[in-house]
């Protein structure tokens, strides 16, 4: 999954072992099936056939693509799984901002509407187009593993796939699982939240960035302009499914600071946004308390510097 993954299970040890092995197997399946780095993944096959043939896909892949289409529509085109081609311009070793002449041919390859879904499968309309399902699959995998845990008969556990989290049941003490929120401007956790039977996704511009001429640019790029977004530093969202939490958080980042906050406040799910200056923002009336965290479910609590270490 390209990031550290963690699985916590509580219950009968033999059953936990069995379910953990099953989850590991399932996580590997997601990796091999959707990674754009392996040539025999479905993502690579679809990308390799861009502008040419229709690639047959299974029910799961189709549902993931359709889900990505809903995200595209709800984000006014900002969440676009075809925008990964911008990596060709925004390489790690860049020392200057890309010119419009450099961006133009790449931007012509970005458009979700050119992903042709039909009963026969999927075809990318333009040669050179690429899709990257990473922004959906990682969160969806957290949900899918959580489902395996429950169906395996385990009632308490946490799936953490590089920050995309699903909490199954409560912790063994019967309390919501306490999950730390990473400090986007430093090390360690800056806040925490109690979660039971819900998904939590955190996205931030802090994870990956590009330094150009002493200025730090977010890896989050606007698919229409090809330029980095001045986004919130970090957004954490709680929803019934990790995949939904993840899409809401990503769209909030892509919308930029003001519109991102507006988007989050208009939705019904709990969130914590941290802006560029380190300010905490949340839903009006849901102030983030400071101090020890023993508060109710789904409430973000600011950690003091001692606790965060």
């Amino acid at each position: 999954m390209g990031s550290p993954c963690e699985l916590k299970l509580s219950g009968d040890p033999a059953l936990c072992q069995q379910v953990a092995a099953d989850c590991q197997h399932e996580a590997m399946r997601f990796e091999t099936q959707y990674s754009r780095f392996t040539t025999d993944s479905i993502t690579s096959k679809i990308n390799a056939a861009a502008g040419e043939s229709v690639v047959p896909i299974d029910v799961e892949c189709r549902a993931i693509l359709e889900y990505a289409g809903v995200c595209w529509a709800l984000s006014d085109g900002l969440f676009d799984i075809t925008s990964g081609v911008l990596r060709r311009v925004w390489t790690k070793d860049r020392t200057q901002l890309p010119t419009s002449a450099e961006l133009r041919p790449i931007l012509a390859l970005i458009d979700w509407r050119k992903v042709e879904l039909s009963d026969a499968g999927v075809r990318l309309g333009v040669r050179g187009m690429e899709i990257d399902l990473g922004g959906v699959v990682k969160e969806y995998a957290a949900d899918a593993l959580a489902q395996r845990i429950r169906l395996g008969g385990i009632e308490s556990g946490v799936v953490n796939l590089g920050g995309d989290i699903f909490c199954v049941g409560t912790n063994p003490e019967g309390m919501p699982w306490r999950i730390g929120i990473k400090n986007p401007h430093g090390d360690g956790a800056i806040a925490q939240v109690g979660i039971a039977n819900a998904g939590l996704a955190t996205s931030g511009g802090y994870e990956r960035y590009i330094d150009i001429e002493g200025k730090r640019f977010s890896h989050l790029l606007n698919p229409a302009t090809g330029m980095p977004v001045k986004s919130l530093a970090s957004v954490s969202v709680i929803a019934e499914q990790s995949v939904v939490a993840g899409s809401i958080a990503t769209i909030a980042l892509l919308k930029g600071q003001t519109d991102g906050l507006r988007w989050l406040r208009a939705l019904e799910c709990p969130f914590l946004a941290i802006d560029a200056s380190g300010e905490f923002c949340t839903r009006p009336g849901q102030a983030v308390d400071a101090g020890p965290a023993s508060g109710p479910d789904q409430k973000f609590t600011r950690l003091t510097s001692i606790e965060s270490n």
Partner: protein
Amino acid sequence: MGPKNQLTPLALLSAAALSLPAFSASQPTERVVSVNTSVYQEGDADAAEVVFGDLQRFRVKTNQFNLSAPIGRDWSMSLGYDNEAMSGASPWGTVAASDGSGDLIMSGASIDDSRNGVDVNLTRHWRGQSLGVSVGYSGEHDYHSRSLGLNYERDFFKQNTTLALSVSYSSDELTPTDAQLFQRLEKGSKHTRSFYASVNQLLSPVSMLSLGFGITKRIGELSDPYKLRDVRPGKRVERTLTANYRRYFDWQTSSLAVDYRYFWDSYSVGAHTLAMSWMLGDEAGMQWGPMLRYYSQSAAAFYTPWDRYDQLETIAQSSDFRLSTFGAVSYGLKARYRIGAVQISMQYERYDSGSGYALSSAKTEHPGLVDFEVLSLGAEYRF
């Protein structure tokens, strides 16, 4: 944000996420225990139209228990038990009245019976399809029924379409009480075979249409042994067409259900049912709403308003009000309240029937047509 009456992005994302295979709803992921108790009370018979017997008609108290649970990853089971206690009088027959209609002969209030039923279902789930087998037994002192069923479900087109097929067979045994005293049939049997197919189509993230067709074939002792003169053909083939529509609205998080059913059989009974219900409120809290149902049927070919003793016993006839031309209107209220894992529900329904409600005109109204009320209370626990 768009106008208020549009779905929120969260609702749209959640709906799209639910079509991802891991969230396939076909497989239960939690154990559910539910109990339900209800009282069904028929209105008294009209004294002016009863020549003999008790006026107090049926009262049925029902208690139900249901448990469903997943077993491992691929299996699920459900277990149901119900008990009914019946008391009151029922029509024995009809005689011609002076005004050209029929008058009722009622049973005494001696009917006091109880019925117990159990059914067990075991289902195997695969990705996108499931196959279940169920067995059931229902018994009262003069009636025993054993049944066996198979049901299959399969999702198509990214789970937007579900096909459901079911077949069932039941074998019933009748041993009417006081058979010798009243010269009733002493022992009889009945075999029922049914097939039902339905297609459920998601029209949009917020609306759903389901169409179904069913056929049931009954063979054996189909006459009512407790009636004074009831001779029905020993074979009855029934067909039904159903259409169910569901639509969810953002406004008050409400939902609308519209159900239509057309029934026709080899006795020449034809019936239409149209039902509508509206639920308001959040599933996670309080939900309530009204329901309304209309029913109309045309009489069986051999229906007679009063019993014909001048007719040979080999010729079909029945004065059962359920085979007459009539219509009915029911209305009621439903309410559900969820607190965490527990849901409490309550439902009240009132049913009024009469020949005037029927779409086709009836020559005479059957004096035995019932009006009834049902009140039910239920509780459900998920864990």
